[in-house]
């Protein structure tokens, strides 16, 4: 009996001992992770400090006294409330447009052979690597001709019109794999072209949709160049990333106001990430797997 106990205890001890290196590793990693997210912690702390306290520098994250006024300033005077709404509007609509149009195109290209389908695919692949930044000048020109330059809708169209070939190709690859029987069953049930797509095929493609939506979301939320150019003459249409740049240009001493503006711009996307983490991860890993 004593022998048994000893064995048990040493067993448990060994188990704890064998876990110990892992816990140490985890602790080290937590340390690294804290350094990793330090800029965000610093920004958060800066956003609650007095501007003068910021300039005196130092590492202390805890403010002497909490200055909530920074947020009021960023939200109202620097218009970050409005910029945030602009950004959300632009991002959501762009994500919807991109997802739908890429799903539609990917579907037809994958499931049907028609005159020009090869050429269509060929052009898409050929432009896969066109960097959008360099084509900005004609984009501005054409938006101007369409009278879309000073509007959010123009910005949305431009954002959802560029690139995203990879999204089409993702849908293309996915729809190609779906067995034909499914489609035929739908046809037998009397579903037409459109209904087959929306009630059978699109729901099947949920994982791809998640991937595309998440990738588009990150790209659009972070977009800087296009929104910059589209809002030159309409400051009230700025998105947060452009607004931040303008803030720096206009009120250089207000570091804490800027930090507050940064927090306002970053918090929504971080919160979203925490809730939809799985889709973010799958969205990104989708790029390697397929």
């Amino acid at each position: 009996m004593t022998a048994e106990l000893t064995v048990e205890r040493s067993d448990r001890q060994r188990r704890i001992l064998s876990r110990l290196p892992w816990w140490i590793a985890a602790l080290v990693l937590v340390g690294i992770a804290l350094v990793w997210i330090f800029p965000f912690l610093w920004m958060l702390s800066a956003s609650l400090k007095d501007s003068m306290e910021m300039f005196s520098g130092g590492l202390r994250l805890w403010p002497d006294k909490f200055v909530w006024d920074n947020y009021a300033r960023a939200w109202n005077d620097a218009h970050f409330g409005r910029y945030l709404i602009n950004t959300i509007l632009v991002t959501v609509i762009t994500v919807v447009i991109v997802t739908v149009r890429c799903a539609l195109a990917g579907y037809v290209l994958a499931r049907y052979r028609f005159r020009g389908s090869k050429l269509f695919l060929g052009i898409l692949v050929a432009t896969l690597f066109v960097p959008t930044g360099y084509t900005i000048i004609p984009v501005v020109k054409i938006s101007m001709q369409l009278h879309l330059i000073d509007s959010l809708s123009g910005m949305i169209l431009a954002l959802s019109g560029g690139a995203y070939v990879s999204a089409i190709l993702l849908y293309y690859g996915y729809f190609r794999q779906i067995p034909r029987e499914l489609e035929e069953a739908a046809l037998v049930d009397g579903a037409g072209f459109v209904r087959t797509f929306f009630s059978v095929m699109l729901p099947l493609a949920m994982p791809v949709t998640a991937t595309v939506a998440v990738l588009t979301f990150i790209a659009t939320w972070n977009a800087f160049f296009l929104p910059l150019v589209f809002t030159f003459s309409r400051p009230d249409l700025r998105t947060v990333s452009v607004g931040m740049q303008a803030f720096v240009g206009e009120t250089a001493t207000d570091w804490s106001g800027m930090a507050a503006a940064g927090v306002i711009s970053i918090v929504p996307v971080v919160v979203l990430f925490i809730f939809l983490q799985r889709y973010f991860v799958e969205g990104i890993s989708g790029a390697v797997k397929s």
Partner: protein
Amino acid sequence: MTGMTRRSLLGASVLAVAGAAVGCSSSTDESGSTSGGGATGTLAWWDHFSSFKRLNDDWAKNQSSALKANVAHTYYDASKAPQAFQLAHQANKMPDIYSNVVGLPLSALVSGKWVHEITLPADVKSKLPKDAFTEGITQLDGKLYGFPMFSLRQSSTLVWVNKDHWGKAGLDPNNVPKDYPGFKDALGKLKGAGLQPLTLAIGADGGRIRDQIDDMAQTAGFPGYQGLQFTTGEYAYHHDAYVTVIEFLKELNDAKLIMPGSNNFGVVDARTRFASGAVGTFIDGIWCAGGSKALAPPIVDKLASGWVLAPTADVQPFCYRGRPSSGYFVSADSKNPDAAGKLLASFMSDEYQNGMIEAMDQPPLNLDLVASSKAIDAYKKGVDFCKANVFLMPQAIVKNPAQAKVDAYRKPVTPHVGNIVQGYLGGSISDLKAELKKLSDATTADRAQALQKAKAAGAKVSEDDYVFTDWKPGQDYEGAK
């Protein structure tokens, strides 16, 4: 004139960027939104003068009743303004009046349908100085297109000091050294007292330090402007004066008298450090007082100013500038150019001119109002210095207005003097003189290609337009027009 426009553009943009939107601290109703330009009954007004933001907002209200029109003023951050104006122009949405930030020579503005002739009441016209009406700069074929706003007697390169810092280091802030050795000693004392001695805006695109080197080269004896020698019409950036100035900055840099980070500072970054009391000395334009006040109001009481530095104390710090350039234009799209002209005319009223002086930015055309104004002494001292030491320089475009064509074909030459300073202080450039010679050659070549193109397009221009053998230092150039 490219240089001219560039300079005024830079000066303006620099102060606008730096000026830190006064309105940002006020209520939210001054949002950036624009009410539709050009509609009858509405006068849209766009500018990029951040120090005048509040003044202009108030003035718009004031003039709304005087002109019986809804005057809508919108301020644009200077770094965004050129693009904003270009887009608006293409979309035919230009405001009735707008500030000069586009950077095109006047002839291009006229042919590109950017501007409308300005009609001013006679009494206002007589208030403007004679040299404000210059063919090719503000006028074309005798018609006035550009409304001048600022005096030519100003400088980008005065020494500004924080009295507290200088006092702590045992220095007299009311007697700022005017020569290199004295200035360096003073900075050394600041450093000895544990303070950051000096900052300069060397970073960003180097535009500010470029202007300052040009100014200091003049006080160091360079008989020309932006590398161009008045008497020979040749580019000579490799002139000893330029070398002297840049070597002096290098000396300060190597003695660690320049605040770390300055090599990467834009004007706003540098002025922020100065205005918040992080550094004791700053070389900045006459608008430093207004710009710093907008950033951190308490600094105003601590300011003292000096001159443009010269290598030795016995040198007269003479500087040379071109004729006043256009401050505002009336848009070709304007539905109501007469009212737009009246709005511009109102800027010449003593009330508005006083408002400009109190904002302590670029001094207005009427410098006589400065002495009795509420501006701080350091500002008045700066204006006095400029009045006594800044002179009108000869300009090719004045001699031959057809030179505007040449300017339109000029291209930016990089690296320019500002970039070179950045590279030399940072250690990327070791042979300064060779680099400056290269710049002279590249600028000469660029002028040659522009001249050639202009001639091919039918303009009667020649290299002689740049030669002013009768130029004399220390006086306004009034040579034959």
